[in-house]
Each structure stands twice: as structure tokens, then as C-alpha cells.
């Protein structure tokens, strides 16, 4: 009898544990959907990281470098202004880590008069268009905002939940930046928006090849990213004096000829940008190598260190058509 009662208690509490865990899952999913709905509702196109750079536009520049980290860390806007005979402040760098065209379009729509007379030079990277890259650090927030809550949950749960966490947190940060009017009232970041990377990564940290690099992982250029981001590039054309889209180079240690997987994917990505440019009327600079920019100038497979900045900037500015 005692044994029977004991096993009954054991069974009952085991069922309680199971039902509590199931209930936790259900409550959490419901609450998470609610939070995503709130985030979708308060989402603003300009993320915090871009908003803090927009005070640079107060100098009414006519050359604006924008885009992702390869502009943020390797375009010296002050040098670019010197090289093109512009006064200091006439060229600025508003690029930020994992920056996306949709966010720049959002900034343009917020302050159209500041962009209307400017040449906007925006860099892009494969992960901005490749739907296969879903990691939290680089998934474009404005693309995530364009998905329905159901699409968000089915696309990212359970393994890519960090992407939705980042989306929610960044949305609240962006909303805060918008309400504090940081873009208009904030202080200007130093060096006209240029940031620098101090040292190179260790030898064992360099990827072996680029064909299997995470930015080209699960290669898919037919998802919402490619659709929304290319549309954003097209929408920018009439809103700026001129738009140039830059496809920056990778570190010279990587040989396209010896890496057919990379070559194939990279050609498809470059073709997507070039075709969009032809269709919508913007220039595309597909930079595969920069003369003088050597392996020793690179911090990692994508970004240059301080010594590479003037070399890259000079080359980029020389390639821009007025």
C-alpha cells in the first residue's frame, strides 16, 4: 500500500514537472510574440548605431560614406575631403557595424534635404543579401522588422533566437534615440565618423578560405534580405544627388582562382548588386583588390588596420565618378 502511494506521488509530481515545463514554454511563446508585436509597432528605421553618427550631417556634407563596417573602419572622410578639394566636414562617414541600406534609406527619409545634394557612397557585404546568414550580430534589423511576427518566429526559433533578442533590444534603443532626437541634437562623433582597428588577429584565427566563410554560408539570394535591401538601394537613387554602391575587397591572402566556391557565390552577389544598379540607375564599384593594400594592412579577412586606411581611401576616392 505504501509503495503504491509512493509511486502515485512520484507519478503525480513527475506529471507536474512535465506540465510546468510545457506551460512555461506556452507562456513564454505567448509573451515573446507579444513583445515582438510591440517591437514591430515601435520600430524606427534608423538604429541607435546610425543615429549617433547622424549629427555629422549638421555640417551639410556633399560626400557621405555610409554602409557597413568596411566603410566605418577604412574610409577616412577627412582625407577624402582633402583629396577632392572639399572643405573639412564636407565629407563624413556614417557607416556602422553591420549597417544596411534600409537604415540609410530611413535616415534619408528623416532628413531628405541633407542627402538631396550629396553623393552617397554606400558599401555592402554578402551577409546583407544572403538569407542564409541569420546570426544575431549581423541580421539586418530593418529586414527583421518587415517580417510578420509569425514569420519572425518561424524563421528564427529556436536556434536563432538571439537574432530576435537583438531585434527587440535594438528596436527599443532605436526608439529611445528617436525620442531623444540624438540624430539632430547629439554630439558629433570624432574623426568624422572613422573608427580604427588597432591590431591584426592571431594567425590561427584567419579563416582557411572564403567559400565556407559564414558570410557566404547557406547561400541564398532569394530571401527577404535581398528583396528588401536591393529595393532600398533603388529607392535611394532619386533621394540623393548620386548613389554609388561599393563592394569592398577581402584580404589579399585569399585567392579567388583557388577557391571556386567563393568565386561562384561572390560572382552571384556582385551580379545582384550590379544588375540592381543597372536597373535603378546607381553606380557600382566592385573592388576586388586595391593596389598597395597588402596582407600586412589587414586586421582580419575583411577589415584593414590604421595603416591601410589611407591606401584604401585614396583608391576609393579615385574610383568615384563625380
Amino acid at each position, binding site marked *: 500500500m505504501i509503495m503504491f502511494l509512493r509511486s502515485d506521488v*512520484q507519478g503525480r*509530481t513527475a506529471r507536474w*514537472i512535465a506540465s*510546468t515545463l510545457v506551460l*512555461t514554454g506556452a*507562456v513564454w511563446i505567448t509573451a515573446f510574440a507579444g513583445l515582438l508585436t510591440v517591437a514591430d509597432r515601435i520600430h524606427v528605421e534608423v538604429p541607435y548605431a546610425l543615429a549617433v553618427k547622424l549629427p555629422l550631417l549638421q555640417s551639410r556634407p556633399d560626400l557621405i560614406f555610409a554602409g557597413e563596417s568596411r566603410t566605418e573602419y577604412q574610409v577616412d572622410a577627412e582625407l577624402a575631403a582633402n583629396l577632392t578639394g572639399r572643405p573639412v566636414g564636407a565629407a563624413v562617414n556614417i557607416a556602422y557595424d553591420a549597417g544596411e541600406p534600409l537604415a540609410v534609406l530611413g535616415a534619408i527619409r528623416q532628413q531628405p534635404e541633407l542627402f538631396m545634394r550629396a553623393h552617397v557612397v554606400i558599401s555592402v557585404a554578402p551577409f546583407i543579401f544572403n538569407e542564409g546568414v541569420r546570426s544575431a550580430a549581423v541580421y539586418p534589423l530593418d529586414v527583421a522588422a518587415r517580417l510578420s511576427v509569425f514569420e519572425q518566429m518561424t524563421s528564427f526559433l529556436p536556434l536563432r533566437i538571439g537574432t530576435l533578442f537583438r531585434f527587440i*533590444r535594438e528596436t*527599443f534603443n532605436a526608439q*529611445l534615440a528617436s525620442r*531623444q532626437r540624438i540624430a539632430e541634437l547629439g554630439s558629433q562623433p570624432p574623426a568624422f565618423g572613422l573608427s580604427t582597428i588597432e591590431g591584426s588577429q592571431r594567425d590561427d584565427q584567419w579563416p582557411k578560405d572564403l567559400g565556407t566563410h559564414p558570410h557566404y554560408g547557406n547561400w541564398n539570394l532569394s530571401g527577404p534580405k535581398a528583396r528588401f535591401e536591393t529595393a532600398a538601394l533603388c529607392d535611394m537613387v532619386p533621394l540623393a544627388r548620386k548613389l554609388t554602391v561599393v563592394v569592398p575587397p577581402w584580404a589579399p591572402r585569399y585567392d579567388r582562382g583557388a577557391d571556386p566556391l567563393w568565386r561562384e557565390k561572390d560572382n552571384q552577389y556582385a551580379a545582384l548588386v550590379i544588375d540592381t544598379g543597372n536597373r535603378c540607375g546607381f553606380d557600382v564599384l566592385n573592388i576586388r583588390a586595391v593596389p598597395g593594400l597588402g596582407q600586412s594592412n589587414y586586421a582580419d579577412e575583411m577589415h584593414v588596420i590604421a595603416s591601410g586606411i589611407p591606401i584604401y581611401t585614396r583608391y576609393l576616392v579615385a574610383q568615384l565618378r563625380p
Partner: protein
Amino acid sequence: MLFSSYTFLFQFLPATVLAFTAARRHSLRAGIVVLAAASLFFYGAWRPVYLLLLIASIAVNFMLGLSMKDRLRRRAIGTFGVAINLAVLCYFKYTGFILDAVNALSGPQLPFSSIILPLGISFFTFQQIAYLVDIMRGARVESDIVSYTLFVSFFPHLIAGPLVHHAEMIPQFKRGCTGRSAALAARGLAIFAAGLFKKVVIADNLAQFVSPVFAHLDAGGGVTTSWAWLATLAYTLQIYFDFSGYSDMAIGLALLFGIRLPVNFRSPYQATSVIEFWRRWHITLSRFLRDYLYIPLGGNRLGEQRRYTNLMVTMLLGGLWHGAGWNFLVWGGLHGFYLSINHLWRELRGEALGSTAKGLSWVITFFSVVIAWVFFRARTLGGAWQMLGSLFGFEAGSSGYAPPDILRLMDLPVLVGEERLLLVGGATVALALVIALFLPNVPQIFGYREYRRSPERGSFVRWRPNTAWALFTALALSSSLFGMWQRLEFLYFQF
């Protein structure tokens, strides 16, 4: 690996529970081996090199214990072992403090490179000192290395306690009931959820009213009286909910494996005297200090004057145990002083109190504890004095505090304005205080008993494995999961 991290909750814990369950089906010993291995992995995940320190500490103390079987050499070896443990603890925890003090006194700077404090070193060192001292006093020597390793390294208590005693842990590893009870596991899950909620939802949300204010004061600034009180009271509650939440999580996790850890908190802010406060706050540390410091010093057996000296010494060392700094020493000294006054008062007036006197006693006790927390929280003595000045209306400092106008709800920023932030902070502190003062504590709610001793008084809220409690637990767990993205460490990790 924090208990309140996704890696712990969704990878380490399920893997350990599954591996333990499978091993336990095979044999009791296999289950213990799995738990010991998982615990070492848990520690190594922080900084693998310090796993070597933990293993060396366990191995040396275990060997010392074995060699103490020889009655003739027992005292000498035990004393040597205690000295070794204290030397290691001193090296990692107090070298910087001692050299700073020497440099300040002597002038020329001694060479010094900063030493990383290994997580949990104060806890696992003290537990092993207690083990050696008890053998010197005649306790049984543990000859099973696996049980001993698990006693020291069992992951729920390894980093921040409760400080466990070998006599309450090792016998459990050898009893057949370990890991066989779904009833214990259900209780463990609910206690864990309560602890997680206390840490992530209450303590972490209070942190925003504390950290920037104390940082400003430590940098030489000043704050208004209202912000000083808000920050101090918020810290008073933050440290309670953070540390008691951690202890609850540890107790709950241990119960998942059928192991009972000692209760560490019993509503300390309900205490109406400082003596009672220390019977409710960090109970396992108080127990250790009493059994291995205060009583060996003579306790209250050598006359009144000696008792107060012993109290002061015990509390000063208790303060230093928390950290190498003058602030901790002052905090310990204050509590030693409070305890001495409290004992003296009891000698003169007796223990019985009417309801009015009880109320007054609570106010005095709470106020005294709050003032002492100022020294515990401030990083510098200057910051602590500045805070005390601000609390009593003496605003000073090189620069005034500019409060943020942003409220962070589970770290999500919301613009509320400076004045409203003060109001929201005050309301949050008031709510947390109501919870700490008027709701039953976790041992009361969950009827948690440690080895059938110290049964809690019954409370009007009592856990049962029913639908309502499943819903409460689910709400606590799911809301905590949202807050976990803040990744704030437990306050007691630094000790």
C-alpha cells in the same frame, strides 16, 4: 557559466540531468561520478586554468585528510593543512590589498601584478578548512575521493555557496535516495524558478538605481539626499534578492539531483535585532564563523569583555572574508559593534519585547543594516563617506549627479524623464521591501527542511504540485527568461 544564462539552462543543466539520470539507473556511484565530472566541467568553463587550482586544492586536502588518520600526527598535519589553505586564499585574495597597505605605509612601491581571483575560492577553501578542523576534533576521515570531490565542487554551491559542511553533504551521496525522487525534483524546480525570478526580475532591475549612483560617488561626485536614499535602499534589497535568489537556485538545483543544501536566508529584513539578522542572513557563513572562529576564540565562555572582543574579531574577519578592502573591514567592524551593543542591551534589559518596542527594534535594526551596506557597496572609503553625507543632507562632491532619464525594464530602455525615474525607483524599492518584509520566504513556502532540522513555521502560502503552482512557476520562469539577456553577474561572485 551563470545559473541565469541560456548556456546553463538550455545546455549544461539538461545534459547533466540526463547524464545523471542515466548513470543513476546504473548505480548510485555512477550518478555521483557524473555529478562530480559535471561540476568540474562547470568550473572549468569559466577559466580552465583555475580548474587545476580547484583540483589541486581538492587533492591536497583529501590527501591531508587521509594522512590525519594517524592520531599522533593529526594535529600537526591539520594545522599545516589549515595554514596551506589560508596561504592560498591570502595569495589570491589579499596580496593586492596587503601590498597596497605596505606601499602606503612604506613609500617605495613593491612590484605587483594583479591576480585574478578564482571564482568561489573563499567558499571551497573554507569548506575544506572546516573539514580538516573537524578531523582534528575527531570527525571521520573521508576515504572516497569521488564523494569528497563532489562535496567540495558540487556545482550548485561551488561558486557562491551556501557554505556546506562535509557532514551534511557526504552522507547524502552515499544514501540510495539520491536522484530517485520526482517529488524532490518538482520542489527543486519550483524553488529554482523562485530564485531565478528574485535574481533576474527583482535584483537586476534594482541595479539601475544603484550602480551609477555609487560609481559617481566613488569618483568623487555628490548626489541629492533623495537619490542617496533610493540608491542605498535599492542596494539593500538588490543584494538580498540577488544573493538569496542565488541560494534558492542552488537549493533547487541540488534537489533536482535529490541532494539537500542548507537554507541560507530566512527573511533577514524581518529581524528585530542584529543578533536575529545574523541568524537569518547568509546563515551558512554565520554558522561557519561561529563554529570555526568565534567558539574557538572562546565565544562567551571567558567573560563579558572577552565575548565582545571575540565578536569584533569574528565580524572583522567575516568582513575581510567578503573582500580585501578597508570598506569590508569597516562593514564587518560595524556589525561587530552592533552585535556587541545588542548583546549588552540584552544583558541589561532581557529579550522580551512588547509590540511597540518590537517595531522600534525593527526600525533600529533595519536602519543599522542599511547604513552598514553603504560601506559594503562603495568601492572606496571616500565614496562611502560621501554617500553617508548625502543620506543625511550634507551634499558635497566635485560634481552633482545627473540622473539618467531612462528606465530600463529588463534592460529595455524607456524614456521616462528624471523626476518620474525617481518616482518609479521609489515605487520599485517599496514593492521589493513589501515582498521582503511581508511575504513568506522560500523555505516557508516550499516547506523546505534541511535534514529534518529547523522546520519552518507554516505560512498562509504553501507550495503544492497543483495547477495553480504550475502556472506560478511557469510565469516566474518565463518572465525570468526575458530578463536573462542582461547577463548581470551575481553580486556574491566577487567574493
